[in-house]
């Protein structure tokens, strides 16, 4: 599955990266974020496009498993 590293980036950059990655890999992506706004916004974006989102937290980072 396509991996996206959006750590260290502020909104709207992570959501733009998620959008681009999902166009290339429509079946899903795994994206890592370390900013709460990025976590929330990418989750909202993926759900609005009909994807399921599973969140795995480790410390101050979140890995979002986004699947069709």
């Amino acid at each position, binding site marked *: 599955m396509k991996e996206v590293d959006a750590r260290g980036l*502020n909104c709207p950059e992570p*959501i*733009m990266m998620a959008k681009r990655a999902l166009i290339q890999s429509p079946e899903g992506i795994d994206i890592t974020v370390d*900013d*709460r*706004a990025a976590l929330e*916004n990418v989750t*909202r*974006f993926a759900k*609005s496009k009909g994807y399921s989102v599973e969140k795995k937290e480790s410390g101050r980072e979140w890995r979002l498993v986004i699947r069709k």
Partner: protein
Amino acid sequence: MEKDIRIKLKDMVHSSGCNAKLPPGDLRAVLENIPHYSDEKLIGGYEKNDDALVYDLGDGSVLLETVDFFPPMVDDGYTFGEIAAANAISDIYAMGAEPMVAMSLMCFPSCLPLSVMEEIMRGAIEKAKEAGIRIAGGHTISDREPKFGLSVTARIEKEKVWTNGGCEENDALVLTKKLGVGVLMTSFKAGEAGEEDVGKAIGSMRTLNKKAMESARDLNVHAATDVTGFSLLGHSSEMAEASGKSIVIDSSALQFIDGAYELASEGFLPEGRYTNEDYIGEKVSFSENIPLPLKDLLFSPETSGGLLLSLSESDAKKYIERMEGKAFIIGKVVGKMEKDILVI
């Protein structure tokens, strides 16, 4: 000077407009720790969360002082100058006064041509002229990111000052601009917002709250503020708290700039949406039927937003007529409840 159209001011900054405000909880933590020396002439300062300080001149009038500056949310210097000026002067209108004079604050990167600074200043000067005032000097420093704003002074009869703390039960709450600027400008930065919708957001930000203030001056305004970085819910909550009342916001009466709701539904939300909820989330309750994008919009920072006025229902109706479709009743004031704000 020739205008350099390749420069994209908004891409030079990490956050922009009133979204660049420090998270309110952080600011409060600092304000609680610093000494507060009283001055009997200082009848309104930052402990009251009002829009400007109020200094008693002792002759029946008061001096109002406010300062506001932020990084650009648009690419064009002139438009940025207009927006920054309209936003800064708004704090004076929110106190019910006419501005008198202003000074500018400019942070400017050495990598940019000076023509950009000139454009920012031109935009601000013309907007200040529209407000009937001059920008009489200022201060400029070199900085990595551009930022601009004004310090604005006004003088008004002491009895005529509007504060944020006089809401009365059964007052109607009136808002004078549509919401959604913060969401649209975040989406604009992401390249997702429609050109026409962005144009409407920019048009809203560069509009002075002059008419909004003047149309209410002969009415009995019980409380007033303007809606900026702390969001509609944040500023309403400050008003409710300062008045010892609660406010019920009718979600069906709220108006949003075209495109804002759809973009909020897709998650194009400013960072301030989350820090605002951290600060005031506990003071707000939502009816079960309120969808997430609506909550997101109500917690999102606005830049150069409208005035929020608390008036009797009959005065509110007169005001709405005078504003010719540019103001809406969005809720009412009720007795103190457990929460400051209830969104139904």
